[in-house]
């Protein structure tokens, strides 16, 4: 075992992690730990753009952007956070340009902008051009540019190191740490893939930036490595997860594969059609049609298929039609995604419509933070020295449905904020003592799986999980379907205790790490499903067929999912005053074998905009 000491440790080297590192590393001694080489992070897969009210091509301002974000999120957005993001968006884009990001340009040489779903002029009047982009590889350019700056600043990376535990000086999962009590982070435990060695990092500040968790679903635009690690680590340590039931299904994944075709395809004029060739979005969103927010388009597509109007031999997808666009225009604006259609489906988008179906895309929920990036352990108290940013975090700027281009923005704005906050805190803080044997839990878990001579295969369990999530917790949900998913997850948790891996070596044992990642996926899936079961309403990405309306009276609050010990004898055992038990609004507890999942809630911050019906 090796021990390291840094002022700031950043976990994750995607857009959020590297943006944080650029701030932190110039101020204090900083290390970035990443399970992937930084440039392999999934930020690089983002296509369409990053929005900011630059007003380079038409009138625009940050207040309109704030409003669109709040409305797009179906009013579950914390409006103070959305305002910060929309205001700082402008500098976030300009910062990237100054770092060298090759944006597409206007004829005057300024950063060009294009339309994207849900972004409008003057509170919904018409679509506005707000998305700054570099063809359909904006995320690639952001990731490369941030990495280039990290090379320039000689940021220290620990690549292909998996962080497997978060060290906090109080046992929050025990459920008895009173509100107001000071809780500190002391570091993380990591596993070096190449050698199997354990590394303990002691740090004054830790920034979690591990990205999303799309792999709980079978059909997803997310990378194989997006297994919700950071969220699960926090959850296991008793930190709540916020709004996990809100998962975004992106309308246009390549049918059967889930590979994303950016909304930019529709922004540039693409049209969705059913088997009859009908432009069906005219029926669902008469004003902005194909450019309605993602949750609405995804449900409309699923509904077309359900009602028998799907295309293809099994009538199980719809068609994205680009054939009326000029090939030269497609090549200039959408080169990568049209190549995906050619490579993976053998479809020529110039002349043939592309088969598409909704794909699990983005986790709106995550580790709760305030606008400085500090992690909350209940509605009020922060954990000192602990920060989170990017898709892993829930600030919450996306509410129940994220607008396209708002995530690349989120990772830049809140990545930067978290990096600055973490460094400032480290300057004034001292190291917190590590627990006596900081790595025992991690080593025990790994060894158990590694040496178990035989047992169930990781891949079988993961497949079963992903299939039940696709079948029961996707675009349409009901109490019955969610209960089925929950029963399946519980059964899989039991089976997980018997998994074994075939690779017994210590060198680059990805077999073992896939098992660990499956454990994370199961934990995340349970928070998604239990959150969804509790929420007897439909809002943004969460649609309950048995409760198709939004219910502000009962559910205009954030869900907070806490893992807590089993009660000694029945009932909900956590004294009031202990964290999590706030207003009792969500009195919901789900009992698992070794713990219970207790749902609390957190108020939504409303500043300027009162909830209205969301119509497009």
């Amino acid at each position: 075992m090796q021990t390291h000491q840094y002022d700031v440790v950043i976990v994750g080297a995607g857009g959020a992690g590297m943006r944080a590192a650029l701030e932190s590393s110039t101020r204090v001694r900083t290390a970035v730990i990443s399970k992937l080489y930084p440039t392999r992070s999934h930020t690089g897969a983002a296509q369409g753009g990053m929005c900011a009210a630059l007003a380079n091509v038409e009138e625009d301002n940050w207040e309109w952007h704030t409003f669109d974000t709040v409305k797009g999120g179906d009013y579950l957005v914390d409006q103070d956070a959305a305002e910060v993001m929309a205001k700082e968006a402008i500098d976030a884009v300009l910062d990237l340009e100054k770092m060298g990001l090759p944006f597409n340009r206007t004829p005057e040489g300024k950063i060009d902008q294009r339309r994207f779903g849900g972004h409008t002029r003057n509170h919904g009047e018409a679509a506005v051009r707000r998305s700054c982009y570099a063809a359909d590889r904006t995320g690639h350019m952001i990731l490369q540019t941030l990495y280039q700056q990290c090379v320039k600043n000689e940021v220290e990376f620990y690549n292909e190191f998996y962080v497997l535990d978060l060290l906090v000086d109080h046992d929050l999962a025990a459920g008895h740490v009173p509100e107001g009590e000071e809780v500190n982070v002391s570091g993380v435990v990591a596993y070096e893939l190449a050698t199997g060695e354990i590394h303990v990092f002691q740090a004054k500040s830790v920034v979690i930036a591990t990205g999303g968790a799309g792999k709980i679903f079978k059909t997803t635009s997310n990378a194989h490595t997006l297994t919700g690690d950071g969220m699960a680590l926090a959850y296991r340590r008793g930190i709540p997860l916020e709004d996990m039931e809100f998962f975004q299904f992106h309308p246009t994944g390549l049918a059967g594969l889930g590979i994303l075709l950016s909304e930019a395809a529709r922004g540039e004029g693409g049209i969705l059609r059913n088997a009859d060739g009908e432009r069906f979005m005219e029926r669902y969103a008469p004003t902005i049609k194909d450019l309605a927010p993602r949750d609405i388009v995804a449900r409309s597509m699923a509904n077309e298929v359900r009602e028998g109007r799907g295309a293809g031999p099994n009538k199980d997808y719809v068609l994205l039609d680009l054939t009326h666009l000029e090939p030269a225009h497609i090549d200039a604006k959408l080169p990568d995604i049209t190549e995906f259609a050619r490579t993976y489906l053998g479809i020529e988008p110039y002349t043939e419509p592309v088969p598409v179906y909704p794909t699990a895309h983005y986790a709106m929920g995550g580790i709760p933070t305030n606008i400085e990036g500090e992690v909350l352990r209940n509605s009020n108290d922060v954990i000192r020295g602990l920060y989170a940013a990017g898709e892993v975090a829930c600030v919450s700027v996306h509410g129940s449905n994220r607008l396209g281009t708002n995530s690349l923005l989120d990772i830049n704005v809140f990545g930067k904020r978290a990096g600055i906050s973490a460094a400032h805190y480290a300057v004034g803080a001292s190291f917190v003592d590590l627990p006596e044997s900081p790595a025992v839990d991690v080593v025990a878990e790994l060894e158990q799986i590694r040496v178990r001579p035989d047992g169930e295969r990781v891949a079988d369990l993961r497949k079963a999980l992903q299939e039940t999530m696709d079948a029961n917790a996707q675009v349409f949900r009901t109490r019955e379907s969610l209960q089925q998913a929950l029963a399946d997850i519980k059964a899989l948790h039991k089976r997980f205790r018997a998994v074994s891996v075939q690779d017994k070596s210590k060198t680059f044992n990805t077999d073992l790490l896939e098992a660990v990642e499956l454990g994370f996926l199961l934990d995340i899936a349970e928070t998604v499903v239990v959150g969804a079961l509790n929420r007897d309403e439909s809002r943004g990405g969460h649609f309950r067929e048995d409760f198709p309306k939004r219910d502000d009276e009962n559910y205009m609050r954030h869900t907070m999912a806490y893992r807590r010990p089993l009660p000694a004898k029945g009932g909900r055992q956590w004294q009031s005053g202990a964290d999590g038990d706030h207003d009792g609004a969500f009195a919901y507890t789900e009992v698992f074998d070794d713990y219970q999942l207790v749902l609390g809630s957190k108020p939504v911050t409303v500043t300027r905009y009162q909830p209205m019906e969301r119509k497009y």
Partner: protein
Amino acid sequence: MTAVAEAPSKIGEVPSFTVTLRVLRHLPADDGELAERWDEFQVQAHGTDRVLDALHQVKWEQDGSLTFRRSCAHGVCGSDAMRINGRNRLACKTLLKDLDPSKPITVEPIKGLPVIKDLVVDMEPFFASYREIMPFLITTGNEPTRERLQSAEQRERFDDTTKCILCAACTSSCPVFWTDGQYFGPAAIVNAHRFIFDSRDEGGAQRLEILNDKEGVWRCRTTFNCTEACPRGIQVTKAIQEVKRAMITRAF
């Protein structure tokens, strides 16, 4: 081994076929040495399956110890460059049906970088060359308050080389790199090109100085392997030629 296309039993069902993978394994022994051997696996594949799907099928259903890197699974992260039927490609971008599934498909690690295990190589020497060419925008003077202006034509000048995903398919297909591991290799030159021809950048002269080194661009023998290997379709050889020309004319 021959491919047997099964008659679709249901209308619309994708026909499946069997393929054989021949994988060059490198298994670490207790003494730290790597034991090399060829393993054959049979997998059941469907129309849209890629080599990566076949490798996953082996790992998930037959031999969990088979080791390779991957993440995005659609050709944008650069994790899974490998030698497939003797050519460098991304496993996630190579469809089995395009490979003549009637013959065994050979899979080996990319060449010229030290193997860690099976298909995983040590990428550090590759990234070290990349870092040496100063792969970041270099400017002087005060920062402007707004964006730096750049015309669409100026932007187009280096568009091709901005697409690089650092997968090393090019560098590890280069015969010069195989025999001389000190050579910067095509990927580093591609990334130098990306900045040298960026109208906003002022570090071109420094970068050309670095690449003028004996291990620099002049070692390129214009064999075009790199261009053929590049999964992003970057005109790698052309980029190297442009850097060479810039070195002579100092016009960029």
